[in-house]
């Protein structure tokens, strides 16, 4: 049955997440202003808080699905801060890739490590099929030899290993792309530097260099070394990962824009500006009308995220819906945070408050995991029934 109210069990979890977020916030500015530092894996207050994931025990069929819940939890956490967590969950994007594309043995062997995912290269932006990093098999030693550069590797500094996209045969295009697992410390694997960014400064985003980096033959995820003649078999395998991450990335951004909206509403209410729903718009001030409009935009974007997650909870395909969530979320959070600063005026740009930080942090949403443009290509192809060669 169609409904959008969390159950009591859902709320228990979300309330807990909110409690942690309120604590986390008190650390947000420090790690923004001191970007060379990394937030701790666990905050001192952690002892006073049960682990959120414990609360997931004892949920029933009448409770909201795990996919949808994970979106609400992600948004709830970034409502506190993008980077700081009460407890840093193990695992990064690479772990998702390992689960999606790795063999059971590989999952067993590396599942316990925090794995980053290295896709983007200086030359290829958000077009994964342009990967230049090459993997060449050395039959003598039965090793892969990797050479290439990767940028914008999330949690790249602290990860214990990385899933790297590399090509076995550039001429084969997407079909030649495979993902390989490289552990930190492997000779020839250099973590170049932590990027200096507009926002999410406490986050680690690394650049990697692979120079004749040798890894065992068994480190090719999935183990399939063949290059499918047509289509992009291996590529599809690694692309799977994105179906889960696109809505998550949107949810992460929407947690931040929600924080901006709540702060703005609170400030206007304290200033005695009427912000009622239900009365006609002509009774409202320009600032109030703008805030209500942005609150609606926030809801709209969040619903597209929940829809994509709900489909995956149902085991239904959600490739287009994942791109809808990512495209809508990426655009909405820009408009919302820009608009909140507009509404509050000069105080909105002061670093006395977190609003200006949220404005910076959230801007990554429409860029990583595929820009809004890339998402629109995917949606457009679906709407038009076009192949990727027909709409580029």
């Amino acid at each position, binding site marked *: *049955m*169609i*409904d*959008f*109210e*969390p*159950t009591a069990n*859902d709320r228990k979890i979300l309330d807990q997440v909110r409690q942690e977020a309120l604590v986390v916030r008190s650390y947000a500015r420090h790690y923004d202003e001191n970007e060379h530092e990394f937030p701790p894996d666990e905050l001192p207050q952690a002892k006073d808080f049960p682990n959120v994931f414990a609360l997931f025990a004892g949920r029933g069929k*009448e*409770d*909201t*699905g795990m996919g*949808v819940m994970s979106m609400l939890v992600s948004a709830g956490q970034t409502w506190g801060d993008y980077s700081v967590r009460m407890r840093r969950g193990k695992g990064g994007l690479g772990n998702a890739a390992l689960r999606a594309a790795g063999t059971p043995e590989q999952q067993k062997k590396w599942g316990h490590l925090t794995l980053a995912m290295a896709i983007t290269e200086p030359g290829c932006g958000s077009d994964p099929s342009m990967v230049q990093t090459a993997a060449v098999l050395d039959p003598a030693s039965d090793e892969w030899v990797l050479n290439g550069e990767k940028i914008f590797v999330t949690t790249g500094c602290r990860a214990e290993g990385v899933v790297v996209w590399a090509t076995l045969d550039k001429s084969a295009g997407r079909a030649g792309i495979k993902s390989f697992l490289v552990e930190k410390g492997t000779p020839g694997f250099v973590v170049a530097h932590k990027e200096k960014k507009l926002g999410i400064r406490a986050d680690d985003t690394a650049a990697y260099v692979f120079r004749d980096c040798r890894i065992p033959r068994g480190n090719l995820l999935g183990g399939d070394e063949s290059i499918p003649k047509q289509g992009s078999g291996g590529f599809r395998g690694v692309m799977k990962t994105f179906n889960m991450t696109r809505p998550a990335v949107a949810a992460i951004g929407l947690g931040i824009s929600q924080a901006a909206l709540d702060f703005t509403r609170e400030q206007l209410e304290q200033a005695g500006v009427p912000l009622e*729903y*239900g*009365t*006609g*718009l*002509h*009774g409202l001030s320009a600032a109030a*009308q703008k805030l*209500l*409009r942005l*609150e*609606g*935009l926030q*809801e*709209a*974007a969040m*619903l*597209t995220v*929940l*829809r994509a997650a*709900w*489909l995956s909870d*149902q085991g239904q395909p959600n490739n*287009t*819906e994942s791109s*809808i969530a990512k*495209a*809508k979320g990426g655009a909405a959070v820009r408009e919302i945070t820009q608009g909140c600063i507009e509404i509050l005026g000069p105080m909105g740009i002061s670093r006395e408050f977190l609003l200006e930080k949220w404005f910076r942090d959230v801007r990554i949403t429409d860029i990583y995991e595929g820009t809004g*443009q890339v998402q*629109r*290509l995917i*949606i*457009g192809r*679906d*709407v*038009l029934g*076009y192949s990727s060669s*027909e*709409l580029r």
Partner: protein
Amino acid sequence: MISFGPTEEQEVVREAMREFAAKAMRPIARECDEKSELPEEFLQASFELGLTTTQLPEACGGGGEPRSPVTNAIVLEELAHGDATLALAAVAPSLFAFAIADLGTEEQKRSLLPAFCGTRPHVASLALMEPGPGFDVSSLRTLAEPKGDRFVLSGSKRFVPLGMRASHFLVLARGANGDASLGAYVVPRDAQGLRVVGPEKTLGLRALGCASLELERVEVPAEARLGGAGGTDVRRLLNASRVALAAVMTGVSRAVLEYAVPYAKDRVAFGEAIARKQAIAFTLADMRIETDAMRWLAWRAAADLEHGRDATRSAQQARGYAAEACMKIADDGVQVLGGHGYIREHPVEMWYRNARSLGVLEGAATL
């Protein structure tokens, strides 16, 4: 529990409505618009869908099915996909009937509802809007003064859907002398001092047969007030109407998208189908994104109504968002068709007028 899953019954209804829209609405929509006329046969056919009757109490001759605002939202999207004007015509009576059923006194139900449960369509309508710039619910000027055991209504109403055929009007008015509370009053068409003028000439929704009402000290008994002399919270009524409009605008938006896609794939310019140009393809992608978003907002507000939660916020968000998005989608639809979007050989021209009209019904939905 958060779920986007329609019930099997809702799926069935959706299919039936989709078929009705394609067969009985889309084909006649243009002619109805050009003639500003609503064919009797259509009213009869849409009446036979049972949109109103099935959800009225058995005691009044109805089907006694539980009211489902969510199902109604699904229905309205499909009907509006056929044609927004005809969709509004099909459900206008239910806005009146459901208001009586949900908020009316037993006496009001007994006296007013059976008429909707006959074999022929029965029309009664909601009179909300008023003349003058920037109308919205916060600025109602129609007054209801208590006078002994009666109310005296004075004011003007505009854009009363199907007003030319309605037997009764549910007139929204403010209390007089300082009492700003909103009330709804059942006024029979033949009431002393009521003038029904029209049909009104409008930009879009031309076949809706909207009427203007001039109320010159129209006296009605205290029992004519919805919910009885003490009144009731009419916001529920307004919220239901807002959700309905949001669902209609979702249907219009989907219609534009589904019309523009094949056009853009056929249409060749500069050597290839215009759909292969990013400027066009991305516009179509955005139509899909926004149509989805509109639908979920409408469903969410409908779910609030269905579970008796306050829908004031969610209904306003649904209507406001839909109005802005639907206007943009219709506008972009015209642009995708270019010159063909400007001529009346294609429906997009009509949808552009309807989208702008829908967005200001009941007052600006967004500013």
